């Protein structure tokens, strides 16, 4: 089966949910034809449950009705919004009853090994022949990621695509739970998207900031809303936002207020979550804002080594000043982690972490090649210990995880293309991380981030508070 026919099948199968007519022309009479021997032999049954899940939900993939001890390859295929194809596969052998149960049986090889219920998702990589430096990100969160799971005869890593699969199933992976509302925010110069959970509320809120790549990345916010948090994905680096030259924190304070003032948000239960540069902004606001006080903060792959009260563009440009410390490895990938090493002892060159007044969760990978986050975290702990507020700090360090610690079960990539915004220059950046440990880190850290946010932002029942009458 060529990629083209895979694509048409995938597109047609997905569109079935929304329109009828397309698939009549694409499949059925004139479409994919099974091999003639199939009509006489039993066919295996492939199931994926749930058929439609949230991105962070586990699924169960199972094959039945195979001959006993039969080698099969389970294969996943996804076409990204950028039109690239991503795939993963595992080699299995059916048991005596002719079954393969991915959540219980070990993959003997492929893009993942061992008992890995979600391996078909997190071990995906671009198919051979793809463009280089790809990164898989869902920009339209109102539609699902559609993944085609197929079973093929035998164990192969190529060439098996030339044969039709034994069976296929389609599964949807959603960032938005049913009932979550998505609303564009264009208020007082603030640009972002707010996601509101279903129900009357009121809910806790989260200000969510992505990294130095800029733009409006919504998927983590959508997923947070699916877990009961009103979440604002903030655009703070695009030219139209023009905040980069702003020396104050006003833009972020305005964004924080938008969440707080929302009729469905509990005013004193708003936190901030940031990744990379977003994490640095988070620390800056938490330490120095005089008008907003986040109830808690989550900083993923971030650092406090940036001068306070300087504009973002200063901070970003400053980083590039240390060119002698910015390496390019043998595969032409930018390695930026040394830029802030060794961690400065000059207090003017980093945020005063003694000023943090709320619980802080740091999530880092020790194979982060883009930023020296582990070293930063150690220095943060030192500063907070000296200031007497270390009890607020929790640090999660993941061995062999890289920089881009995202919601779980989405692919890991060690390096990808990155556009340096203010230089408008495209480079290949080494993020780091090894696939399996990075995938484990994503799964574990996401659960811990959700627990942390719930613990601090969801008001808890206390025996001393009388039950309220509604």
């Amino acid at each position, binding site marked *: 089966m060529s990629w083209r026919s895979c694509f048409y099948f995938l597109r047609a199968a997905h569109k079935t949910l929304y329109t009828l007519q397309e698939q009549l022309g694409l499949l059925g009479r004139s479409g994919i034809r099974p091999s003639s021997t199939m*009509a006489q032999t039993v066919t295996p049954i492939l199931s994926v449950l749930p*058929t439609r899940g*949230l991105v962070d*939900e586990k699924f169960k993939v199972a094959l039945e009705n195979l001959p006993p001890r039969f080698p099969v390859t389970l294969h996943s295929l996804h076409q990204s919004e950028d039109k690239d194809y991503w795939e993963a596969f595992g080699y299995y052998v059916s048991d005596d009853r002719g079954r393969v149960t991915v959540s219980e049986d070990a993959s003997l090889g492929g893009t993942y090994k061992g008992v890995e219920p979600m391996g078909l998702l997190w071990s995906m990589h671009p198919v051979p022949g793809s463009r280089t430096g790809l990164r898989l990100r869902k920009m339209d969160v109102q539609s699902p990621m559609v993944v085609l799971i197929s079973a093929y005869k035998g164990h192969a890593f190529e060439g098996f695509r030339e044969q*039709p699969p034994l069976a296929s199933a389609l599964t949807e992976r959603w960032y938005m*739970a*049913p009932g979550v509302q998505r609303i564009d925010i264009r208020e007082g110069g603030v640009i972002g998207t707010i996601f509101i959970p279903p129900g009357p509320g*009121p809910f806790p809120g989260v200000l969510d900031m992505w990294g130095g790549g800029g733009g409006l990345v919504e998927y983590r916010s959508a997923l947070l809303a699916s877990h009961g948090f009103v979440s604002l994905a903030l655009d703070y680096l695009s030219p139209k936002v023009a905040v980069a030259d702003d020396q104050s924190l006003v833009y972020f304070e305005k964004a924080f207020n938008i969440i707080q003032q929302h*009729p469905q948000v509990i005013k004193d239960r708003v936190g901030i979550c940031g990744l990379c540069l977003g994490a640095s902004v988070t620390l800056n606001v938490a330490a120095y804002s005089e008008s907003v006080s986040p109830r808690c903060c989550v900083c993923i792959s971030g650092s406090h080594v940036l001068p306070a009260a300087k504009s973002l563009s200063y901070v970003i440009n400053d980083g590039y000043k240390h060119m002698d410390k910015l390496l390019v490895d043998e595969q032409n990938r930018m390695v930026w982690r040394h830029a802030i090493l060794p961690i400065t002892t000059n207090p003017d060159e980093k945020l005063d972490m003694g000023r943090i007044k709320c619980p802080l969760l740091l999530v880092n990978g020790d194979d982060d090649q883009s930023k020296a986050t582990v070293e930063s975290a150690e220095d943060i702990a030192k500063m907070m210990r000296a200031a007497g507020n270390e009890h607020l700090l929790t640090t999660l360090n993941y061995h062999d995880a890289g920089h881009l610690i995202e919601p779980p079960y989405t692919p890991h990539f060690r390096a990808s293309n990155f556009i340096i915004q203010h230089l408008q220059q495209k480079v290949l950046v080494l993020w780091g991380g090894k696939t399996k440990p990075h995938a484990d880190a994503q799964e574990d850290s996401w659960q811990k981030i959700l627990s942390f946010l719930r613990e601090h932002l969801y008001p808890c029942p206390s025996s001393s508070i009388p039950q*309220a009458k509604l």
Partner: protein
Amino acid sequence: MKTWVSNRQSTMETNLWRLLLSVQPSRGLVDEKFSVRVQNAPPAHPLTMHALLHSEDGDTWEAFGHYVTDSGGDVNVSEDPSLGGTYDGVEPMGLLWSLRPAPGSRPGLRFRKRDAQTPMQVRLSVYQGHQSEGFMDRAVLASVMVERWYMAPGVRRVNITEGGVTGTLFLPPGPGPFPGLMDLWGGGGGLVEYRPALLASHGFASLALDYLKQADVKNEYFEDAYRVLQQHPQVCKNRIGLVGLSFGSSVALKMSVYSNVIQPRCIVCVSGSHIHAAGSRLKKTRYNEENQVIWRDLLLPVPTDLSKKVDVGRLQCPLLLVVGEDDQNWPVPESADDMREMMEGAGNSHLLTVLSYPRAGHLIEPPYSPHCRAGTFMAAGSRKKFIALWGGEVAPHSRAQEDAWRKTLDFLRENLYCSAD
């Protein structure tokens, strides 16, 4: 968008705890179980779990159960008992199968999804205390939306209009070929798509057949439909079964025994009879105290004359009969007994499996959808509406639906997927 009864003000004043309501999966197939959990409430706290569904006809259906949180402030509907409501006891899916028309609804309602391509949208909510009425006027503590789908992703819906046959074919995702099913609904007529859509989601190319448009449909129509299914390039021509409900079951039995074209590999007859309907004695219609029509006596007593019933002794393929013992619409238990006797006499009773459910009624449908003990019925081609008594009590009928569906799928898989040629 629904306007919520405002509870924010009182919440903010009293700093009320905010509980977390979660349902997994939030988008499931109609026959998939879900897990409903409440967390972060005070311990030993009374709560009401509530489900709300708006049908395509604009009617409102609701269900509810009364719970008390455990020492951790949690409720897990899959493990904790409901202490009362529209269902009680430990019932993971009670919020769906005990759905009933909201107070003030039109009488005789039956929940059926006409558009099989869109999901049922159920709103699950938590209320303070143990409430039994007036839900729309009360403040909700938390609420989520749940989607319940008849079609798995990738299932394709194809209109069939060839050779004079009218129907809808549902194809599973994948290259196939797949075993095929001809799905024959009951005497209400029309094109009922949700069961074949769900069957396709389980790997069977399923043809929903519209066969009651004319008063006297010819046998050739069914044979033509069977051929259309057989000849589809993604259907295994010699792995086709028949699934019938009510009158459709009778058709399935008749065709399988007497037709040379229709040679199914297996048959499932839900709430059916082998007794020919023609010649049924209308004057045997009975009415209960609520003036609901009981038609089960029309075909009774079971005739001994072979010309008045299908000679199931001649059946050559496995037959699964699904029987509701409280069926008030057809004499299904009596027919099943007679079929067993005939097949034992003919020596082919090893082909027969009977699933018999006490206190289940006539409309044994895919699981976790509302039960209808009596509902508006209009026979195909007629304009007269009745309230027919289908029978069955909510909890036993719902258990029957769950068990029968699972066993039906196992039966179909065993006979159409697994059996050797």
